[in-house]
């Protein structure tokens, strides 16, 4: 910031800050809405005008994780009294928790498994994309590759058509090779999506790392691969963190392929959450609870890497 500001500049600044606030409110309102709905009793979720003040409840989360059915008859007083607090919440909502007939165990809605699938697929595909992307970028950055520009363009061109265009052929191929509804299938897909992005971003970062660092290590008695791990990689971490955040978000939020390629075993959370809209009357609080939980990992991941991300967002300006 300049030390001296004219009054015109002050007003420009204030206007800019006001504009940022307005933008912020527009961006944050849907997130507030999801979070608020996730803690609302069902009867307040869709009121017009919206209910702003209410007593928060975790009932939507209980419902999110359990399999439920409509109550045909009210539970007996004894059943109700002996039920744990969370089961009472389900009774209060006019439903009952479905239990295994033999063992009496509460049956899961499957959300937890979907969430776990999302984590597995996103984390592994992110690690693969960033790892392979970094190595590829290093190769392009440091060695003379015949037709380098063409290769890089080719790598980028894989992102030039909307991925959904290839969904049907991919689905048919996956069915033949048995990758349908497997973690491996989604991991391969997401890694392939993210790889071109990772290569391009990482190339920018690695180009910025002076070659002298490795050359110094080479002269000092290290092999190239040692130099890569000891010198280049620590310097590239910022870029890798920024790239990882983007890859993770892409994989985490991917909807279309997850919907087509998976149904039970490897289904991720995004296709699962809206599928709950369709069974019986939509319970928006449950959907909001599912969505709310779904937002958390990305928020945590981004928060943990925020320092790297702030520097990394300037794409390349990593020196000093």
């Amino acid at each position, binding site marked *: 910031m300049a030390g001296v500001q004219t009054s015109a500049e002050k007003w420009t600044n204030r206007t800019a800050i006001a504009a940022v606030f307005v933008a912020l409110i527009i961006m944050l309102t849907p997130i507030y809405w999801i979070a608020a709905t996730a803690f609302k009793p069902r009867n307040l979720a869709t009121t017009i005008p919206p209910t702003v003040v209410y007593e928060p409840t975790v009932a939507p989360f209980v419902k999110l994780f359990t399999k439920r059915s409509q109550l045909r008859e009210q539970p007996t007083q004894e059943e109700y009294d002996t039920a744990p607090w969370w089961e009472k919440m389900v009774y209060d909502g006019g439903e009952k928790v479905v239990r295994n007939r033999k063992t009496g165990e509460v049956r899961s809605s499957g959300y937890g498994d979907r969430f776990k699938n999302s984590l597995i697929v996103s984390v592994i595909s992110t690690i693969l994309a960033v790892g392979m992307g970094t190595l590829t970028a290093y190769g392009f950055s440091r060695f003379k590759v015949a037709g380098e520009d063409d290769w890089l363009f080719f790598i980028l061109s894989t992102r030039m058509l909307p991925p959904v265009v290839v969904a049907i052929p991919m689905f048919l191929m996956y069915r033949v090779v048995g990758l349908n509804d497997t973690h491996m299938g989604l991991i391969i897909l997401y890694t392939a999506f993210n790889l071109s992005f990772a290569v391009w971003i990482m190339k920018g970062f690695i180009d910025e790392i002076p070659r002298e660092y490795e*050359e110094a290590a080479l002269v000092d008695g290290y092999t190239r691969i040692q130099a890569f791990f000891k010198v280049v990689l620590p310097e590239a971490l910022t870029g890798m963190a920024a790239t990882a955040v983007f890859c993770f978000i892409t994989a985490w939020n991917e909807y279309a392929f997850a919907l087509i390629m998976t149904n039970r075993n490897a289904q991720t959370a995004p296709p699962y959450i809206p599928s709950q809209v369709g069974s019986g009357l939509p319970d928006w609080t449950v959907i909001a609870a599912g969505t709310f939980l779904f937002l958390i990992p990305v928020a945590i991941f981004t928060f943990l890497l925020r320092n790297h991300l702030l520097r990394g967002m300037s794409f390349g300006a990593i020196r000093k």
Partner: protein
Amino acid sequence: MAQIDMRNVQKFFGANQVLKDLDLTIEDGEFVVMLGQSGGGKTTALRAIAGLETVTSGQILIDGVEMQDKKAADRDIAFVFQSFSLYPHMTVRENISFPLRAVRMGSADREKAVNEVAEVLQITEHLDNKPSALSGGDMQRVAIGRALVRRPKALLMDEPLGVLDAKLREQMRAEIKRLHIARGSTSVYVTHDQVEAMSLADRIVILHDGVLQQVGAPEEVYLHPTNAFVAKFVGSPVMNIHEAQFSGVNGHSSVHIGGAGTGFHFPEQLINHVRNTGQAVSLGVRPEAVLLSHEPQEGYFPAQTSNIEPLGSHDIVDVLVGETVLRARTESGYIAREGQQVFVNIDPAQAHFFDGATGLNLRGAN
């Protein structure tokens, strides 16, 4: 410590030849400075010795062993980069001990070696800092420390002072010299700064367009440049070099520059061998060999002064001779103001004649 030999070294980058038949022997314990313009091939030559650049043909021998096909790591040579290239994610201590970890030296020995080098370079207090916390001079000390710590066969430096400011450069120059005298390591130093070359080198190697121009002690290169390139490159201010014409008047032979009617008197024996070649010839004379006088003297002729650069210890005065300018070195304040008339002459003993086409010094070695 080691002797380094380069034999018929050629290097092409694509079709572009950057080293042409380079033959050079660097003696054990010698401090050799490679001097030249950027793009002259000096850095490539240095990198070829280090193994950071392959050579297209020719041999590089270290202590008589062929090294041109060996990896950098196997040559036991240290390299100091212009950009220091200290690893930002490591402390100074880790930076200096990095080469020792490559050879898996024990931590106690490592600690000892690092402390010893740090003491010599006076950077002990910075050992636990990150490089980013250091000043430019200290960064370069660390870089030199990292190079010296494993006692390499030779120390190669690629414009190590290039990014430092003038004052620090002078100070570090002295330190490098002191260090070299103390440790006696074979050193090859690349620079485009002729002052650095003159002050540091046992021998200077001048490269231009990939061709070795001259190898010699600083004073030899300064006093007896083999060609016009070397003459212009070494010395500050630059040697005056102007196309020359010859005439014989009153039993004197005269050398004219800039189309001036009057020439400088030269004894016959000094110019006989150049005046009758029929080739275009240039006269080269260093500013200190341009003589000025307020009074008319034998052999001096009148001229106008123009620009004056007062440098404290001396002045550099531009003197208009015909259509050209001769730069003269005078005691400070000798010429009071621009435009003043003086009488000018040159010292024939310090004059050089260069072939107009090839640039070769026609006087040969005096």
